[in-house]
């Protein structure tokens, strides 16, 4: 790589980018139903997401929490923060995903956040951790309506009953054959985060699962 880039990051050609489920927008609109069994599906594109690797309670986690502005959730299934803004999902005991559905990804924010881990002064403490931009890794699909849970239950491998999966709960599991994060943001709002390459298939799977409720509302 001999070419000398200017140190300032170039602005992204935002108008050129296409979200992973871009081609499925018409299908998603068509699949939405009205009436008492209504269910709607939409994509929230280009959501800002940061992958965090740190062990809660350690110095690195504390620094990341300060700079990202959200506390890391403590246990499986839990989230922290605002479900309609910046929130954080528990993926593993040392792995977390922050999602800010209220805005789109900004170039360089992960690098800026990760800079807090670079403090190597003596006595600064162990700072083994990681913050990486994962905005392109997964896309956010939002399934809403009284029938949203019934649609997901056709293929979700965890119990979505409110007793087991209350509002604010989020787990990494399978829906159909697709690995994804399932997050109950509100009583009748589920956010699904499949990897980008699975987005089209996931939308097709969900549209098929929603078909029943269109027949019911007709």
């Amino acid at each position, binding site marked *: 790589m001999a070419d000398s880039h200017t140190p300032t990051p170039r602005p992204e050609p935002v108008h050129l980018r296409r979200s992973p489920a871009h081609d499925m927008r018409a299908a998603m609109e068509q699949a939405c139903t009205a009436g008492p069994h209504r269910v709607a599906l939409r994509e929230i594109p280009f959501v800002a997401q940061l992958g965090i690797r740190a062990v809660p309670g350690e110095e690195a986690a504390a620094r990341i929490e300060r700079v990202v502005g959200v506390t890391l959730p403590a246990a*499986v299934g839990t989230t922290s923060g605002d479900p309609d803004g910046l929130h954080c999902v528990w*993926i*593993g*005991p040392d*792995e977390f995903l922050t999602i800010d559905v209220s805005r789109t990804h900004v170039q360089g924010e992960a690098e800026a956040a990760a800079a807090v881990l670079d403090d190597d002064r003596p006595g600064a403490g162990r700072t083994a951790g990681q913050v990486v931009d994962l905005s392109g890794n997964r896309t956010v699909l939002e399934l809403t309506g009284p029938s949203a849970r019934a649609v997901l239950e056709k293929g979700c*491998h*965890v119990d979505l009953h409110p007793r087991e999966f209350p509002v604010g709960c989020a*787990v*990494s*599991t*399978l829906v159909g054959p697709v*690995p994804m994060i399932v997050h109950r943001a509100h009583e009748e709002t589920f956010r699904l985060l499949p990897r980008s390459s699975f987005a089209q298939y996931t939308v097709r799977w969900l549209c098929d699962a929603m078909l029943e409720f269109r027949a019911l509302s007709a």
Partner: protein
Amino acid sequence: MLLIDCPHCGPRDEVEFHYGGQAHVPYPVDPYALSDRAWAEFLFYRDNPRGPFAERWVHAVGCRKWFNAIRDTVTYEFLAVYPMGSPPPNTSTASPPAHDSAHDSGSDPS
């Protein structure tokens, strides 16, 4: 379908996991000192007991962490789940002793 108790995520469906083969198979201290036969036995020969079997699993679509488990190969029941690097817990009290333990353990690869 098995319900596997992930040490981090709790009970989840078997499809969320991947199997990692027999646990506690140590890498040879000096692989170059091994004969071809001993090396092949380390690579390919595993126990195939009837009864409790220590094996590795990974919660592939959940927390993505590896863990060890003792599973009864007759009943498919998980007798214990314990972290990687830990010695296998004694499950002899938990498991029915009826199984024939005289399987051919053959060549211990370690």
